[in-house]
């Protein structure tokens, strides 16, 4: 278990200091696939480098199984890194690269040979064992970097945007491969990415970061369905933001609250979290609604009404851009069915229907 407690990192600058991490606390469980997700410059890589030992935090502490990790130099931490650039040793063969960590740990020769063979097998690189690292493809280099970091059996594997250099198809394959490796080795993975789709498909839990702070931690489903604030809702997937008035809290513990929408209609939506629901006071709030959670209906049946502004065909689904009567734009996504024909055209009056509990009130 890794515990990051109140870690800050300030880089002194000539004109102004830069706060890369502004008090980050989080806990990663054993055997968890944990993702740090955020835009570039949000501090996710800095946090990874603090755990690896390449940066020393300005304040705070990092514990591994209850022991202080910061007291150890990088070469004594049972933590290995897969670098964004892979950082394979160019003067060594594939097998020599994988053996390096074991040699530095002074393992017996026979054990090194066996582990290297196992690792080559694990990442399906056995036929390439004696190749130079410059003679293999990007995807293969990626797998060697993984094998090299996994070979010493670290307690935690840190992955710094390892898939960003691969093309789309290879990236998809490697995502599955990484999940398989994590399951087979039982090692805790801390994965850094700015790709929200990657984070959603691979992670057990995600920490969404912005400007050096953690904005929300949760399972992919929680992060997607119940974003706690506007930044998270906006960064993960596509979201419509509409304003409404909070008019009442349900006392049934469902976490639902009643809001009045622009047209005067009332509906039930999610509070930022169920324990917060009872503490909320009436007044204006911002709602986040996913494009696929609203349903396009005839105008009279709609909770929200507007005119169809644009219809964009995307293959698997179609996006309907609706200009709401109160001035906002709402994007709605509908999955395409075989043989389906849309009789709606630009300029038509339409309504948007929301199921009970669809829509999430954002904090602030």
């Amino acid at each position, binding site marked *: 278990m890794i515990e990051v407690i109140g870690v800050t990192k300030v880089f002194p600058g000539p004109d102004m200091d830069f706060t890369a991490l502004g008090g980050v606390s989080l806990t990663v469980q054993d055997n968890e696939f944990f993702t740090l997700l955020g835009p570039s410059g949000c501090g996710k890589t800095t946090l990874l480098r603090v755990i690896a030992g390449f940066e020393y935090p300005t304040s705070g502490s990092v514990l591994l199984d209850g022991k202080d990790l910061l007291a150890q130099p990088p070469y004594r931490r049972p933590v290995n890194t897969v670098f964004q650039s892979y950082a394979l040793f160019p003067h060594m063969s594939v097998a020599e690269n994988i053996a390096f*960590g074991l040699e530095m740990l002074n393992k017996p020769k026979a054990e090194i040979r066996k582990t290297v063979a196992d690792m080559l097998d694990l990442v399906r690189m056995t036929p390439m064992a004696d190749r130079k690292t410059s003679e293999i493809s990007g995807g293969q280099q990626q797998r060697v970097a993984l094998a090299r970091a996994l070979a010493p059996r670290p307690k935690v594997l840190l992955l710094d945007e390892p898939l960003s250099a691969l093309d789309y198809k290879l990236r998809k394959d490697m995502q599955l491969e990484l999940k398989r490796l994590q399951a087979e080795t039982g090692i805790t993975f801390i994965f850094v990415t700015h790709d929200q789709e990657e984070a959603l498909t691979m992670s057990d839990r995600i920490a969404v970061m912005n400007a050096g702070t953690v904005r929300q931690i949760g399972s992919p489903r929680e992060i997607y369905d119940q974003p706690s604030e506007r930044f998270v809702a906006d960064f993960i997937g596509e979201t419509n933001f509409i304003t409404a008035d909070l008019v009442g809290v349900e006392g049934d513990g469902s976490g639902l609250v009643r809001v009045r929408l622009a047209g005067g209609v009332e509906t039930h939506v999610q509070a930022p979290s169920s324990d917060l629901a009872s503490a909320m006071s009436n007044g204006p709030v911002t709602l986040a609604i996913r494009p696929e959670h609203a349903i396009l209906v005839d105008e009279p049946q709609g909770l929200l009404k507007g005119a169809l502004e644009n219809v964009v065909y995307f293959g698997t689904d179609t996006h309907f851009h609706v200009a709401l009567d109160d001035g906002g734009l709402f994007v709605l996504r509908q999955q395409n069915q075989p043989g389906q024909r849309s009789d709606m055209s630009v300029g038509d009056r339409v309504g948007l229907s929301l199921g009970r509990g669809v829509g999430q009130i954002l904090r602030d």
Partner: protein
Amino acid sequence: MARTFDIRRQTGFPAIAMACFILLYLPIILLVAYSFNAGSSVAVWEGFSWRWYASAWENDQVRAATVRSLILALSATVLATACAVPAALAMARPGRFKGQGLIFGLINQPLMVPEIVTAVALLIVFAAVKVATGYTGMGYLILAHSAFCIPFAYMPIKARLAGMDRALEQAGQDLYGTPFRVFLRITLPQLWPGILAGAMLAFVISLDDVVITEFVKSAGQDTLPTYMLGQLRRVVTPEVNAIATVLLGISVVMVVAFFFLSKSRK
């Protein structure tokens, strides 16, 4: 499509370029050609012969100067490279520090201060040391050559370090390598081409030096270049051409090797 300015299309450019190349290489070609002259003139061709190479080979003074030049160049190369490697590591590795630009300038002093100034300065200091200690051996030449060879050894090593991915060393540490083992197993093997290139450049520079050597050497410490200079003052025979051609050959080999080492993939 708008064409950008192309110097090669300007009037007279080919002629000027050709003239420059002729001026650079014709004298060298003539020098090499006359080293094979059968006669004893450096201007009148009398047929092909190896006699001046044989004559130089049998000349005890040339042999002594050659040995001295090689000892000097090798010693200076080793010393200069030994200084340049840690200097490059200190300048390139731990990140920027205060006064880095100043130190960079100081290391490269021999490239900026006119050689004759350094030569006179060394002459004065070494003269005082000679009087004080009575030592008149090769040590002065070796020290002087090492000093002005340092920037030539330093440059390729620093370039190599600058082009090296920091992540490699971090990966080494991440994989349980102590800083010293990472230096031996990761940094040094990566640095070798740069070190060799720097050493070869230093060797060629030392082998070729006249000004500082002329000022610093004691009596009877002629190197090949200063011996040739001395010969030219008396009688000029194609023997000087022959020695020069051999020196040229060594330099060309070294520079070509330097070129390929600097280019070699990491």
